[in-house]
């Protein structure tokens, strides 16, 4: 589903290399986790996947479902089935959460040549998804992410995921800033959305999210490269020993 080859990325303004040859292959139905210390390039990878401005790919390629992902605008990537759950969801006062969700869903449907959803059908869909994820409808009546608590923002990301139904979900430190109850709710949301034709790329500092969302493959990233890959056990190893031992091994 996702094929990253020898990806080199630098910051546009400072010309600082951030990713220095990332190789990663994610198959449909699987959950991959990427762990790594601060500054290892995890979040950069998620932004480059979603198409944020400010990064330059100097080498390598990303293919997503057979397409050259780097050729696509951010909205076209969403249409192609990619979803980034933001580490810091943006507050947009003046845009209603419900209006935003409906505009997004219908934009994607339209771009795919599908019929737009009527207001009534959309409401039905949102109600069903919100119920499934135990999200109160009052959160949908508020302006997008505005004044939301950290937990509410992350749950709103998962709700968007559940409504847009992407094939590849990149979760960028979705666990950061959450207490254990909020973390569990978010993890349950992710588990509900697991499917044979959907893959997850879970980016996290800590192992604790991976207790609730159990990955098939764990990658450790350091200094812009994936330095180690393994099963779910690798996350536990990192949790016990820290990154220091692993970093020594590759040095």
């Amino acid at each position: 589903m996702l094929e990253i080859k020898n990806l080199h990325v630098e910051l546009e303004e400072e010309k600082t290399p951030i990713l220095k040859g990332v190789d990663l292959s994610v198959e449909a139905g699987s959950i991959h986790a990427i762990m790594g210390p601060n500054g290892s390039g995890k979040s950069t990878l998620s932004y480059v996947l979603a198409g944020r401005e400010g990064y330059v790919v100097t080498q390598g390629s990303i293919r997503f479902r057979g397409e050259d992902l780097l050729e696509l605008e951010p909205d076209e990537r969403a249409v192609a089935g990619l979803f980034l759950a933001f580490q810091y969801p943006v507050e947009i006062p003046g845009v209603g959460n419900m209006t935003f969700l409906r505009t997004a869903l219908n934009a994607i449907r339209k771009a795919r040549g599908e019929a737009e959803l009527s207001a009534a059908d959309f409401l039905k869909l949102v109600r069903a998804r919100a119920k499934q994820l135990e999200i109160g409808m009052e959160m949908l009546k508020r302006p997008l992410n505005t004044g939301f608590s950290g937990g509410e923002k992350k749950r709103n990301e998962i709700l968007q995921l559940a409504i847009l139904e992407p094939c590849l979900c990149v979760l960028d430190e979705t666990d950061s800033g959450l207490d254990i109850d909020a973390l569990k709710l978010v993890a349950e949301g992710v588990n509900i959305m697991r499917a044979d034709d959907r893959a997850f790329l879970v980016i996290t500092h800590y192992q604790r999210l991976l207790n609730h969302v159990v990955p098939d493959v764990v990658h450790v990233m350091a200094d812009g490269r994936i330095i180690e890959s393994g099963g779910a056990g690798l996350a536990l190893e990192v949790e016990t020993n820290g990154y220091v031992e692993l970093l020594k091994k590759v040095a």
Partner: protein
Amino acid sequence: MAQARSVAEALDARLAAAEALGGSGWSRDARSAALSRLRRMGMPARRDEYWRFTDPERLVRPDPGSADLLGDDVRMAFSSTDCTRLVFVDGAFRPDLSDRPAAEHLEILPLQEAMSADIHWASALYGRLEAAGHDPVARPLAALNTALAKDGFVLRATGRVPKPVCLTYLRERDDADATVHVVAGILEGGALTLLENGPGAARMNIVMEVDVAKGAVFNHVRVQGRDHQRLTAAHVFARLAASSHMKSFTMTSNGALTRNETVVDMTGDGARATVAGAVVGDGEFLHDDTVFVTHGAEGCESRQVFKKVLRNGAKGVFQGKILVKEGAQKTDGYQISQGLLLDEDSQFMAKPELEIYADDVACSHGSTCGALDPDALFYLMARGIPRDEAESMLVLAFLAEAVEEIEDAELADDVRGRLEEWIVRHRR
């Protein structure tokens, strides 16, 4: 010197026009009083501090210039609102195009009729709030209006007027110089919603004087029309008695030059006033909101909320002042003005001012100017919304805070819809 001479000549030419009007009874007295005020003040010029961002030359000169008529089929604002519609064409009232000016709890007369009749409440108001509104800053264009106006309305709400009165200003000529004067008294316990829409005239000078009695309510929603080259100078003078409430909102799109002055004098305890505006301009466009709110009594609240979206060299100006007089304790004053520049050619200039002579007061003001937030744009696009549509959503969201100040939800939706249509028409 050349400028000073041309300003003086302009004044002479326009005073001659006012003197020629003559009139009888109270209207003649009101006109001649306005003329003497105007002579004392002189016409405004760019060198005046109050006009430092906006050159008044085109508003002042004898020749109104010309403005092409907009021949498109964009519907008028409030076209689906149930209201008493009073139509002006090039500034002249046209009863043949209007509803009968009548409603429950409303006394109303065209200005021309009122001027030749002995209507004490109209004569007691006409030019009075305008005359009181020159201290500490002169507003000569308003005095000029009082001296020149032949058309307009005098109205008095004796109770809650059940539906809005809508003044619609249409155009037929490309060079009309219109002067419209509206006087409204809202009696104790009364309520009136006044709507204004339409392009006005090639050059439009409009003054509205509103006296809001104890506990009375005044709602004003104005949509200034879209003709590109039109010029407008508009003044609203409002006096608020105890526990009264006013909200005035203006949407402006297009127009070469617009100066909207709002002067609110809160004279009774516990009065509340909101003045808000949403402005969209593209290209040859200068829009100036100048607001002066005086807190002259205890426990009054005022809000000023202005948002301007500017592109292709459009200019936005905001001058807003809150004056808290001695003894006006427990004042709550708020003011925000924000410019959203969609390119580097556009400009937003703001001069927020507070002047406070009481010690138990909460006043705040803020002014910002910037581009669309790239993080917000990326967030929307990352959810599948194309760039154009995402930008429009953000522009509309920026304007929303001002539109929310409109009391009536249906009117607010109408304005929001018009803003959205404008934004879509003016996409890159």
